[in-house]
């Protein structure tokens, strides 16, 4: 694994809830707050829509980092969605950690519609963090390894 590869451009998938974080991302755009192009946003209605399968799929298909953004606890557009998301994502991240996937490849951040600056800063720091880790190592099937 190449850690200090300066040319490494990670693929980062960001799941953003429609009501807070996607709007926060839009706001950072409206305010012209720069963050790395590595981040690609997928709009979901709520952080509770993020199925752990999506996160695993992203890693499986070559993502180097996955970040989930939702409304702040208490501010969920659907009242409670982010609370369920918080538990699910905590357990999944813990499991990924248990499997030896670096902790720094996963993050969850609450970003409100008013926090354009926080969104940009979060994406900036997460990208840096993933970049430092290098490409994602896969839980590949050793038997499929090309010699």
């Amino acid at each position, binding site marked *: 694994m190449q850690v200090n590869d300066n040319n490494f451009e990670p*693929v980062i*998938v960001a799941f953003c809830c*429609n*009501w*807070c974080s*996607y*709007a926060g*991302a*839009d*706001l*950072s*755009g*409206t305010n*012209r*707050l*720069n*963050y790395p*192009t590595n981040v*690609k*946003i*997928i*709009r*979901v*209605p*709520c952080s*509770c*829509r*993020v*199925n*752990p*399968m*999506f996160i695993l*799929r*992203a890693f499986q*298909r*070559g*993502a180097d980092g996955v970040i989930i953004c939702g*409304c702040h606890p*208490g*501010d*969920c*557009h*659907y*009242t*409670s*969605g982010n609370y*369920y998301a918080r538990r*699910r994502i905590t357990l999944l991240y813990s499991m990924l950690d248990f499997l030896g996937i670096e902790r720094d490849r996963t993050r969850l951040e609450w970003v*409100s*519609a*008013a*926090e354009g600056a926080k969104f*940009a800063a979060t994406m900036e720091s997460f990208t840096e963090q993933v970049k430092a880790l290098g490409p994602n190592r896969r839980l590949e099937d050793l038997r499929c390894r090309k010699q």
Partner: protein
Amino acid sequence: MQRIGVFVCHCGTNIAATVDVKAVAEALGHEPGVVISQDYQYMCSESGQNLVKDAIKEHNLSGIVICSCSPRMHENTFRKAAAAAGLNPYLVEIANIREQCSWIHRDIATATEKAIILGKAAVAKVHLNTPLTSMESPVVKRALVIGGGIAGIQTALDIAEAGFDVDIVEKEATIGGKMAQIDKTFPTLDCAACILTPKMVEASQNEKIHIYAFSEVEAVKGFVGNFTVKIKRKARYVDEVKCTGCGACIEKCPMKKVPNEFNMGLDNRHAVYIPFAQAVPKIATIDPNYCMMLKNGKCGLCSKVCAAGAIDYKQQDSFIEEKYGAIVVATGFNPIKLDKYDEFSYNTCPDVVTSLELERLMNAAGPNGGTLLRPSDKSHPHTIVFVQCVGSRCSDEKGKPYCSKICCMYTAKHAMLIRDKYPDTEVYVFYIDVRTPGKNFDEFYRRAVEQYNVHYIKGMVGKVTPKSDGKIDVQASDLLSNEQLHIDADMVVLAAAIEPDKTARPLATMLTTQMDTNDFFTEAHPKLRPVESATAGIFLSGACQGPKDIPETVAQGSAAAAKAIGLLCKNSITCNPCVAHSDELMCNGCSSCEKVRPYGAITYSDKEFRMPDRTIAVRRVASVNPAVCQGCGACTVACPSGAMDLSGFSNSQIMAEVDAICK
């Protein structure tokens, strides 16, 4: 076979300056299923939309992708355009290449590359889009206004005027809010009570308006057109129906040393009280913290003198539940607490007051009957110093980062009124900037300076120290002449910043509306939808959305009313079809989804299924009420079998996006 059209918008130079739109259109043209890929200057314009419509017809498109601004901006525009051209509006996907690409990136090559990937993800998703049809949901023809200040009153009057029932919930014993406490209003100097109280009376007499004073919103369920609100009617210990507001109980009440909130604690009231003479509803309220009968069962005088027999010491909080189609939030503001401003000696010196306290001191119904006297020794003040921006435009923790907006004008008003009534009094105003953008505002301020000779000094007050002779030493800097000043003042008036009412935050949680970091409610769009919250059916009126003066508050109150009326006029509203649905053949009936549903949209029933071996099996399966479901998707993840999926954001659609991005 899918026939997909891709339309890349330049948005003038907003997108085209950092994203090579031609390259994006070219690249996406090679994606599977894409039969036409074009770029255009302004896709959202009439001619841009026609371009899309024509392409749909000409190429018989089965789905379209618009690479443009945020879907939060124009998704609806393009959905309508698609529908007009005969394409189901839910076969439209937006790739956000403006807010999330061109506006945040500088380098054309990488921004273009990202725009192509975002476009590919949208194309991958639209492949899996299905035509959706909206359901209709009925609208309850009744509105709730939370807060009975001038904002709430105006909103309620306007809604009632349009012929709809409207309830006002006010947490205090009377409606009227802050405006009732104000003496005169700028820039016309007419008396606040004279223009407010008729409106209060109008509200109470309008048969379409029902006022729940001394009440609070306890819980909110439901969704646009169909909210169910639980209202707590706090115990007044007085029967609202029987009380005539005669005031006999107040006269007899022996407990006379209760700080009077209405006069900002500058004088006292009785344990049983009516906040002020023109209160609406004019009903007495017993303060359980001071009433001796309620505290230790000794007294009962008020009950004896009440001819109407309205006193009820055993009264309990009660709850009512009502259905509403629309909710207007008008929770207003409060001046901030000045506990942390030791430098102004607010807590230690009674002659250092806030502007709202000054309003009461100058008010004819105030503690001094309208004569301005120092609170400490009731003497006539000869020198008064006003300090602007106390806690406003403040970068540290103590204050607020925003401008409170109203202080410059009311300070000019105060200064002018004092100089007018007491020409022997010198008035100094320390300001950072004087902000007077408003009709007749600057003229008003200039009158204070030029006609009334108020001393406006650009500079900061550093320290306010009470002296032993009763004077107050005000230490300040004059920034223009670069001098340090000491003024021997008799009174100091602090223009405290204003902040949203403390009840707003828990209310926002109940309403699932958003707030900014200062606890002001966030409007759906800062420019184009200033009186709607992002949550459908919830509207914003007055200072709960941001600092406002009275005319602005009234304007916004009426605007919120207009929006609410627009909703209430409809017999039914079109529901979002992007809701959950359960595949009965896959459903296990395990109830996991039912546990996480926020709106009660999922129910279970036993259904018969014909099995492959031709036997009939009865299984418990979930079904979703599409009119109630709001499409959060919590159930889809709770469902282990994947029977539950979300239209518009299906598992396969999101995974297709993931794949496209990670490729």
